[in-house]
């Protein structure tokens, strides 16, 4: 990545400020009595995690996926299904019992989402461009209708959880503790992905996004790298899904609906494509605007639309790009 020294300095300041803000927010909210801010920002953080994982695909891998909600939903359903089996004591597939232990459920949500990404990715990556967009969308919608048909797990109505997962030493039912656990997950994913995009893997990935033909003639099987990227993105979304199921204590097919994929894409574009940190800002702005505009009108989308158009037209690198002065 080509960054001028002044823009990378601004980026450092901005990321530090953002991290301090998110770390201090619950303290300030508790002090001032605006406790609802904690759950609002928990939602922001979880959506940010999903948006960052999508940015890895679109902004670095050149893989414009319109089916990212599938992996969020899979993470959610893994959490929900394991919970229900644990609650009712009925073994899953007659093999193993369910559980509400986050140390088991969340890694499983990540692994199952990555597994689905492996299957969906290896079929979708046979195509590119417009076809890739359509085939990822088709897979996600297929899974959506599959979830609707899952009568055993609530079908259309979804699946309620009666409590959040348990994490030894912590009480996730406590909104404050849950907030910091989510923030920890987001921070971890951001650190891992920022290292990843400038690593050897990331360089191959960015090269493949810009010029796949050249990657192949350098002797690198570029599609395989894109597939691994697709799996990492899916894994991140799977974790976001598990967290979201915990926050709302509810899983439903709407998690997998294409409108969620669309929302995530809007967050990425709004915040700044190919910046990893931008989508965090994008998620915050999107969800806060939704919250504020919805207070005045139920047609809040009508106001959000023009804002998005302006950002896409005039700020190539999104809000984060405007704030850091990124020019390339």
């Amino acid at each position, binding site marked *: 990545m080509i960054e001028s020294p002044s823009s990378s300095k601004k980026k450092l300041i901005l990321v530090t400020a953002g991290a301090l803000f998110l770390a201090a927010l619950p303290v300030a909210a508790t002090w001032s009595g605006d406790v609802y801010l904690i759950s609002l920002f928990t939602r922001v953080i979880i959506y940010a995690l999903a948006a960052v994982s999508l940015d890895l695909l679109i902004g670095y891998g050149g893989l414009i996926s319109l089916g990212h909600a599938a992996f969020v939903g899979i993470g959610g359903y893994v959490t929900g299904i394991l919970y229900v089996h644990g609650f009712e004591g009925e073994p899953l597939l007659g093999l193993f019992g369910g559980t509400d232990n986050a140390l088991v459920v969340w890694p499983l949500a990540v692994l199952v989402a990555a597994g689905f990404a492996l299957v969906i990715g290896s079929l979708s990556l046979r195509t590119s461009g417009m076809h890739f967009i359509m085939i990822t969308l088709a897979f996600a919608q297929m899974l959506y209708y599959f979830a609707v048909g899952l009568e055993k797990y609530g079908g259309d109505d979804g699946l309620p959880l009666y409590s959040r997962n348990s994490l030894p030493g912590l009480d996730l039912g406590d909104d404050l503790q849950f907030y910091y656990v989510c923030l920890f997950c987001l921070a971890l994913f951001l650190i891992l992905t920022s290292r990843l995009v400038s*690593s050897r893997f990331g360089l191959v990935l960015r090269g493949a996004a810009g010029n796949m033909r050249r990657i192949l003639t*350098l002797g690198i099987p570029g599609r395989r790298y894109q597939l691994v990227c697709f799996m990492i993105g899916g894994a991140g979304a799977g974790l976001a899904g598990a967290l979201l199921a915990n926050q709302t204590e509810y899983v439903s097919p709407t998690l997998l609906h294409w409108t969620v994929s669309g929302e995530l894409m809007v967050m990425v574009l709004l915040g700044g494509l190919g910046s990893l940190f931008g989508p965090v800002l994008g998620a915050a702005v999107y969800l806060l605007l939704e919250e504020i505009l919805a207070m005045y009108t139920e047609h809040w989308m009508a106001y959000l639309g023009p804002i998005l158009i302006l950002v896409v037209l005039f700020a190539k690198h999104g809000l984060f790009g405007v704030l850091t002065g990124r020019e390339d």
Partner: protein
Amino acid sequence: MADYILQVRNLCKSFGAVQASANLSFSVERRNIHALIGPNGAGKTTIVNQLSGELEQDSGSILFNSVDISSYPVYRRVAAGLGRSFQITSVFDNLSVAENMALAILAGDGHNYRFWNHACNAASVKRELAAALSRVDLIDKADRSAGALSHGEKRQLEVGMALVGKPELLMLDEPMAGLGAGGTVELMKLIRQLKGQMTILLVEHDMDVVFALADRISVIVYGACIASGSPEEIRGNPEVQQAYLGEN
């Protein structure tokens, strides 16, 4: 018997009614500069694309170091030692000059499923990057975006990237295209230096360049090789003069 690095046997490729390669056969001797010439539309780039594996032949075989590679995908041919540069410059416009070169270096240095350390801190990149950039005179522009380079500089980068893979056989597809006189002289000097280290298959329009550099020349007309020989033999061949040189 001569030591052939590349043997093309009865290669055929048609696009509908057009025969791009018509029972094409020629052989390239090791450590030679072997030029492919022919009038426009003779099918030279199609041949290079078939050799690199981007186009599949309809029939015939390609032997590289006596191994039939005609069913290998592109990246396996590269791994076997067959490198190429493109007629239309093909670098990574979205990456910096240094990153372009680093990618070319890393391509030949094991797998790239390494997710943590910075790509430019890899031992092979630290060892080779500066020399690889200097060789094509781009060390001062290392941090520039490759997309912002001039056409000539992109071509230098392209050739430089093809070189770091240390291919046994380097295919240069019209390397002089779009270069000014100065650039052409520079690049000819570079190609001469490479002679002896590797075999070069040169597809080139500029006859002065071809006759100055080539050890052997094959003349392609309508996808078939009508003559192969030393520059003197080709110059004296009446068939070639009629089919090709005579027209100019």
